[in-house]
């Protein structure tokens, strides 16, 4: 085991939430755990600041070892994710106060936190799988917390799809582990050997589908609007903000960026850009503000996957870093917007504007409003996206994002506010203000701290105008839709393609009934003993054929 102190920080990233989770076994501690939730991600934040590219933390001897390590893109995402978990934890302790089952919620929260933060630092495949499984269980528990019929349905869809994705991911990992020389289970080694394998395409397909399910790539996104809308506000914030990024960072680590894979790059880029527009198209038909935000996440995840895809086809090893920078901005903004939904619901109409103005700024920053972190993020991914069709489409998608975000603000305003004259409690306002400020401060801070990055570039009039154009276009379309489109948009159910799952669930009992009747027939004595004799003959024949 490495004795370097930064390695111990990495261990504490997973260790502290896990230890708090184990303490939740005792009911008295569990009931009081809620205020302590904000403490659990602190080692993760510290690790993100100091442990990037540090020696890894290794547990165990023999062939199977648990390894925790942090690369630079991972450290960016870990830092903002830890910040979001801390802020959302503080928010949750006020939001959930007095609600039933808060002990259970705290336990699920800690499970999800351990899994999410741990997955950012997991460097070997088995550890990653373990943490993903933990994350799925915790997130599912949070989604079903309110126990409404919608929450049950959402958590069932989420759990089913997540387990299916993990099953495919497991198969891909086993195939990779089998082919890696020396039996190493490190993701880094597997990714290095991947381009030269004969089953490369199968493995890549399994990894993309499995991790794409986690990241919400269309058409594997159907669980996201259901889950993120059904969960309580702080849970939605971390789910949409931090949890989906786990799939992204894992994808960024598995994909072999040193080898040029043009077909896969093209496929990922196409899928990502399709998702970017699809999320906007379905999102504007949604009425619930949380559902709109969820579809915006679908759209943004698509864009980030497109960045990774362009990097894969152009052999750009910088693509994961650009994607991580873009994703980190999205972590903060989406978290802040989900928390704002809860704050708005507790605020009276008179005090609504001090909430709505920052919300609008944050929402527009997602579309790339100049001088915000969003503009910096879009500027950063211009490089990998290039000047061709992908770059143009990405610019257009910025307009779509602006449209969607204005739709969100519109739906938020229309949603029921709190009692007139009420203000949200400090326990909700303070964390929200903190993360809202971080949305501007952190991207600028990261940009300014990178040596060689000049401030002049993003502030040049040409760059400002290029960033402003899509925002104005999106605002114009939003205005037009509001004026003349009105109620003419189709009603798309939350979770769009998920209705296919509902249809399958309706058909399944019929087949289950048939199997059960077949089983009953086989369990009659004459059938079973005849089957025994038939098997004797069958085995004899099978052994005869050599």
């Amino acid at each position, binding site marked *: 085991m490495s004795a370097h102190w930064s390695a111990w920080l990495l261990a504490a990233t997973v260790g502290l939430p896990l230890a708090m989770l184990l303490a939740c076994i005792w009911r008295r501690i569990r009931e009081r755990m809620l205020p302590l939730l904000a403490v659990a991600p602190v080692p993760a934040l510290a690790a993100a600041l100091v442990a990037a590219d540090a020696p890894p933390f290794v547990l165990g001897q023999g062939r199977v070892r648990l390894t925790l390590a942090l690369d630079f893109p991972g450290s960016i995402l870990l830092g903002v994710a830890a910040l979001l978990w801390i802020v959302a934890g503080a928010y949750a302790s006020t939001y959930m106060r007095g609600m039933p089952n808060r002990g259970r919620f705290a336990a699920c929260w800690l499970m999800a936190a351990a899994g999410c933060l741990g997955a950012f630092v997991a460097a070997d495949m088995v550890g990653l799988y373990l943490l993903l499984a933990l994350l799925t269980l915790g997130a599912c528990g949070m989604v079903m917390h309110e126990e409404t019929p919608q929450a049950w349905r959402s958590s069932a869809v989420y759990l089913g799809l997540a387990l299916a994705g993990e099953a495919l991911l497991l198969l891909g990992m086993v195939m990779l582990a089998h082919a890696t020389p020396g039996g190493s289970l490190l993701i880094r080694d597997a990714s290095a050997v991947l381009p030269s394998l004969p089953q490369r395409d199968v493995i890549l397909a399994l990894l993309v589908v499995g991790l794409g399910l986690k990241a919400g790539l269309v058409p594997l996104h159907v669980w996201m609007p259901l889950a993120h809308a059904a969960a309580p506000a702080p849970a939605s914030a971390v789910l949409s903000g931090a949890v989906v990024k786990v799939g992204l960072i894992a994808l960024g680590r598995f994909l072999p960026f040193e080898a040029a894979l043009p077909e896969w790059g093209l496929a990922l880029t196409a899928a990502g850009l399709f998702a970017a527009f699809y999320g906007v198209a379905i999102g504007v038909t949604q009425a619930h503000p949380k559902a709109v935000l969820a579809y915006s996440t679908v759209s943004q995840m698509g864009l980030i996957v497109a960045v990774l895809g362009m990097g894969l086809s152009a052999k750009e090893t910088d693509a994961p870093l650009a994607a991580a920078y873009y994703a980190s901005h999205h972590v903060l903004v989406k978290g802040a917007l989900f928390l704002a939904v809860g704050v708005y619901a507790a605020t009276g109409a008179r005090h609504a504007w001090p909430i709505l103005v920052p919300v609008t700024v944050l929402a527009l920053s997602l579309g790339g409003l100049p001088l915000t972190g969003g503009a910096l993020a879009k500027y950063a991914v211009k490089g990998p996206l290039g000047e061709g069709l992908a770059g143009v489409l990405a610019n257009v998608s910025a307009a779509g994002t602006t449209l969607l975000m204005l739709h969100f603000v519109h739906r938020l305003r229309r949603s029921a506010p709190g009692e007139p004259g009420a203000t949200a409690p400090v326990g909700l306002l303070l964390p929200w203000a903190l993360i809202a400020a971080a949305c501007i401060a952190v991207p600028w801070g990261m940009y300014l701290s990178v040596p060689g990055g000049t401030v002049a570039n993003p502030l040049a009039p040409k760059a400002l105008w290029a960033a402003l154009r899509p925002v104005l276009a999106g605002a114009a379309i939003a205005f037009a839709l509001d004026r003349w489109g009105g109620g003419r948009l189709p009603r798309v159910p939350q979770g769009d393609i998920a209705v296919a799952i509902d249809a399958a669930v309706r058909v399944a009992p019929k087949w289950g009934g048939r199997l059960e009747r077949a089983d*009953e027939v086989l*369990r*009659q*004595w*004459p059938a079973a*003993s*005849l089957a025994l*004799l038939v098997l004797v003959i069958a085995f004899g024949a099978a052994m005869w054929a050599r």
Partner: protein
Amino acid sequence: MTDAATLFGLLAAALVGIGLYALIVDPQPLRKIVAFNVVGNGVFVLFGAIAHRGAGSGWGGDPVPQALLITGLVVAFSASALAIALLLRLHDVAGSATLATDAPAPVSPDGNAADA
């Protein structure tokens, strides 16, 4: 010597076949127990034939299968005894002895199974 072994071998095969047929087809448990014994006896006759065929010169039969055969007879006997004891007890408790698979327990409208 070969003729006797072959004859008894065919007899054993016939016994096993008859026993298996009755075991599969006849619904009464007592007949199944008797059929199991017939199959068992067929296997033991086969064992005896093999003992006869594998005998060394001057000996009537290979002693190892005879020892195993006796053990098998004891095992079959205790198996039949256990089966008949269960059958008698079933008859006492249920009034009739049949192996028919239980019909699924009737469920009344409020969801209570009859044998809860």
